[in-house]
């Protein structure tokens, strides 16, 4: 069974629009971290945003914010005022307590001019 699931293989929006990427995960731990990573064509992995499970407040980093629904085990990423430079693969990731970091399958996001 997939621990981290991203159900949208590809998404495409127009520049300046808002887009939301979905992620669901599975864990019985109470202590865990969730992440969104961006991988542009350069292949570099870039941390976009991080959420600690014990924090009720949704994390925000400039145009990027998350909707963390702990009971539903959902962790979506919202990108506001999307820019051409946001075009990339986006990966959701889970780190459960002292266990390993696992990634979802990724969502390929294209921002069109």
């Amino acid at each position, binding site marked *: 069974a997939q621990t981290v699931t991203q159900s949208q293989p590809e998404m495409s929006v127009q520049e300046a629009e808002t887009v939301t990427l979905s992620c669901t995960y599975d864990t019985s731990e109470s202590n865990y971290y969730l992440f969104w990573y961006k991988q542009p064509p350069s292949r*570099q992995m870039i941390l976009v945003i991080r959420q600690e499970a014990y924090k009720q407040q949704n994390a925000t980093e400039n145009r990027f914010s998350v909707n963390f629904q702990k009971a539903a085990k959902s962790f979506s990423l919202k990108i506001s005022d999307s820019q051409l430079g946001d075009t990339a693969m986006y990966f959701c*990731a889970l780190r459960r307590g002292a266990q390993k*970091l696992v990634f979802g399958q990724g969502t390929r996001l294209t921002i069109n001019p």
Partner: protein
Amino acid sequence: NAGVTQTPKFRILKIGQSMTLQCAQDMNHNYMYWYRQDPGMGLKLIYYSVGAGITDKGEVPNGYNVSRSTTEDFPLRLELAAPSQTSVYFCATETGAEAFFGQGTRLTVV
């Protein structure tokens, strides 16, 4: 700041050859990982280590071996290269708050 350094960046192997992908970090992180990324796909965990002398299998360990004799180094060994091992390989370290990735090694087995 070097961070996570992978070598080589590119390599072409013939079927049956062996090679070692090198990964070194200068951040004194305990957790280290090897992932492979096939074209257009996500990252699959090959092996990981929670500290020097400790390694464990991930999702796709077959055909690979690792060692962790020091905190700094975490080499990945391919013993008998197969076309199915054609992929991009990423080494990463992690603090729990963030993962740091190397630039990747593009490996082609022909």
